[in-house]
């Protein structure tokens, strides 16, 4: 992790998000629930809340795309790069993109666990970089873990709280 003073962060206490496109692999309601779950994992540790919007521009725009999708970082088909996200800021800042060429899953059956990847990418959307700790959700490579016990590592909590402070609750 980089020292927090070098990392951009959201200055508002409420950050908006919008899911602009979905994968064919999962029901929309499941994607909505998993994105909310991923955001909640971060927000319960810090004094920041997320509000979903249906229309217009949100701080964090979330979507699935394949190949070139307008941000100079084209996806590469199945395997390889699964997703990417941009650090907090205007425009593309905060946005999270997922490769529609992957096979996405909700933790059951075959496929990439969307909750794991969404939690990781939304960590970037909040300003975190990659961690070399294999137990961290910010570890850069994907490993299928235990969905039931999936949680932030103590290092993840320490880093996000270094950036935003501790949750008052």
């Amino acid at each position, binding site marked *: 992790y980089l020292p927090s003073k070098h990392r951009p962060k959201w200055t508002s206490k409420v950050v908006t998000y919008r899911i602009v496109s979905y994968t064919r692999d999962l029901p929309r309601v499941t994607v909505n629930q998993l994105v909310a779950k991923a955001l909640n994992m971060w927000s319960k540790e810090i004094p920041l809340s997320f509000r979903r919007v249906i229309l217009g521009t949100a701080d964090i725009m979330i979507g699935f795309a394949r190949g070139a999708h307008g941000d100079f*970082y084209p996806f590469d088909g199945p395997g390889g790069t*699964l997703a*990417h996200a941009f650090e907090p800021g205007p425009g593309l800042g905060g946005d999270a993109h997922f490769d529609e060429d992957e096979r996405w899953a909700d933790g059951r059956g075959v496929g990439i666990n969307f909750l794991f990847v969404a939690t*990781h990418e939304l960590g*970037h959307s909040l300003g975190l970089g*990659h961690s*070399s700790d294999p137990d961290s959700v910010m570890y*850069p*490579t*994907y490993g299928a873990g235990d969905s039931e016990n999936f949680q932030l590592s103590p290092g993840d909590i320490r880093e996000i709280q270094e950036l935003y402070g501790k949750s008052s609750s």
Partner: protein
Amino acid sequence: LLLPWEAGGLSEPQWKQAQEYLKRFYPSDSKSRAPNRFGAQLKEMQKFFRLPETGVLDSRVIIIMRKPRCGLPDIGE
């Protein structure tokens, strides 16, 4: 003289894939003219993944390079 991939006992496609991976996830100063930029980037990667910093493309590095992953670099911008 051996070609760069031959020196490491690799095939040309393996070596090029590794180069692309390092260029993308361990970007170094583009003005750098270091004679062994590949080895230096590889050491950065080995350091990040807590592997011995040999600068040699071994099977442990190749296994990590083949894993699905996030598209953001591990170091730098």
